[in-house]
């Protein structure tokens, strides 16, 4: 056993060192050119989707029985332990608020929006979100007897606070842009990221079982839900035809971003189409490939949501984005592997304790 654990430890240490170095480099570059911090925000939005989306999925798993519990619950609950890392990754954003968000200097019109979009209130809302999510995650992992009430109340609270903070993080980049579906749209990205990652972990860790077929169906459901929210917001903005909302889309359709748009659509809709066929839904190899495609599409989508608003030098911003994605990614994967081990030993300890009163 120790022969297997030691290389794993070394691997984890290397990943943490490499990820930490990459993150520090990204932040150092962003310190030189503050607006390049948008790259960090994009990576932050993508990688925090893993614990945040997993929180939503784990609460649903507690309420909705079925094969997905055995298949995804262990990895899903481990992903919850990444919430503290997400909070740490938010700190550079707090520090760089004036560079990222135009509303820091004051918004046109003032009024309620002027009071709502202030730095201290922004930070307070994000901290409150992590406090509530962390409490929910703690209750889900340590107080299993309460799972029905915690998950039922938690899902309602979670959807409200998550849609609130993602509007802060991503929609307020453009304070003139209004979309009431934006929160749910980003929530669908977050749950899709978490689901694809959990499917990947499930299939890479153990042999596929009889019920692996449900994973393909779940991924298809998540992609269709995403397509619905993404298209709804677009259709409503298109029909309303107001300059602020049209500009938001126009900025994201110019130059290289128009290619990104097609790539985002293709990396979600092509997997969704392939998942209609039962051999694809049943094939572990297919599911692994499609999960990777979906994850890369969603990473691109987070960059597409953030970067077109950031008016820094594109080359530097892209370097910071790459470094931040790689850095936070390595740290997240290392933390995830650690969390899977920690949770497994915690549950084993509890099972032993229960056996000998």
């Amino acid at each position, binding site marked *: 056993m120790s022969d297997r654990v030691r290389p794993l430890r070394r691997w984890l240490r290397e990943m943490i060192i490499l990820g930490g170095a990459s993150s520090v480099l990204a932040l150092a570059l962003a310190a030189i050119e503050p607006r390049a911090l948008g790259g960090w925000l994009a990576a932050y939005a993508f990688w925090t989707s893993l614990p945040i989306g997993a929180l939503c999925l784990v609460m649903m798993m507690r309420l909705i029985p079925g094969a997905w519990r055995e298949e995804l619950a262990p990895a899903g609950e481990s992903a919850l332990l990444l919430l503290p890392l997400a909070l740490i990754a938010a700190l550079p954003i707090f520090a760089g608020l004036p560079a990222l968000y135009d509303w820091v200097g004051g918004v046109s019109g003032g009024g309620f929006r002027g009071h709502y979009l202030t730095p201290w209130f922004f930070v307070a809302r994000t901290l409150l979100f992590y406090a509530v999510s962390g409490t929910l995650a703690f209750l889900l992992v340590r107080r299993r007897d309460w799972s029905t009430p915690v998950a039922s109340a938690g899902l309602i609270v979670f959807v409200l606070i998550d849609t609130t903070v993602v509007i802060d993080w991503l929609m307020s980049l453009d304070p003139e842009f209004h979309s009431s579906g934006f929160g749910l749209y980003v929530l669908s990205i977050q749950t899709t990221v978490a689901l694809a990652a959990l499917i990947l972990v499930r299939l890479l860790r153990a042999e596929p079982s009889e019920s692996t077929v449900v994973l393909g169906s779940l991924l298809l459901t998540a992609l269709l839900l995403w397509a619905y929210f993404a*298209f709804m917001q*677009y*259709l409503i903005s*298109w*029909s309303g*035809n107001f300059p602020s909302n049209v500009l938001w889309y126009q900025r994201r359709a110019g130059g290289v971003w128009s290619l990104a748009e097609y790539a985002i659509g293709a990396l979600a809709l092509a997997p969704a189409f392939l998942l209609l066929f039962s051999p694809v839904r049943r094939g572990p190899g297919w599911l692994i490939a499609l999960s990777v495609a979906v994850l890369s599409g969603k990473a691109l989508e987070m960059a597409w949501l953030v970067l077109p608003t950031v008016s820094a030098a594109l080359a530097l911003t892209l370097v910071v984005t790459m470094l931040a994605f790689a850095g936070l990614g390595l740290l997240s994967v290392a933390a995830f592997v650690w969390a899977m081990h920690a949770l497994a030993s915690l549950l084993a300890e509890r099972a032993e304790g229960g056996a000998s009163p």
Partner: protein
Amino acid sequence: MREPAPTTPSFGLMAEFDRPERLMESVRRAREAGFRRMDAYSPFPIDGLAEELGFRDRRVPRLTLFGGVFGAAVGYGMQVYTNLAFPIEIGGRPLIATQAFMLITFELTVLFAVLFAIGGMLALNRLPRLHHPLFDVEAFHLASADKFFLVIFSNDAMFDPGKTRGFLEGFAPVRIDVVEHTEEPE
């Protein structure tokens, strides 16, 4: 599975079981023995029973797909036609506005897919149907309570009233009934 026409002497033979596992086992052994035209009845869905019976009918999924494609074409085509036949300029919107047409196209896709699925299922099952020969067997109403039935149709190539009855007795069923054809109306 085509049911026997009234030209055969009887409709078939029916064995009654009290446990789902017994029904599954009997279906498997009857298939192994070479029987093909048979059907099973149970109060609740039994996982894997349709596969054991050799049910590989894909017509309903195909009809659903056809309904969906048909609905999408009708939904989109209808909007293109009405906008071209009665053009109205609204705030600079293009006459053929694909974005806005998607809603109705989607709705009609779902509507026709579901209509074809349900309609196709009913038509292929020859429903609605007021009577079925099995209803003449007194114990058959228990198929909606707690009993499980296997029927071997008389149009099976291997069907023989005496031998098939002997074969079914080998499964130790609760009882075996001969299912007669329903009398034609005078």
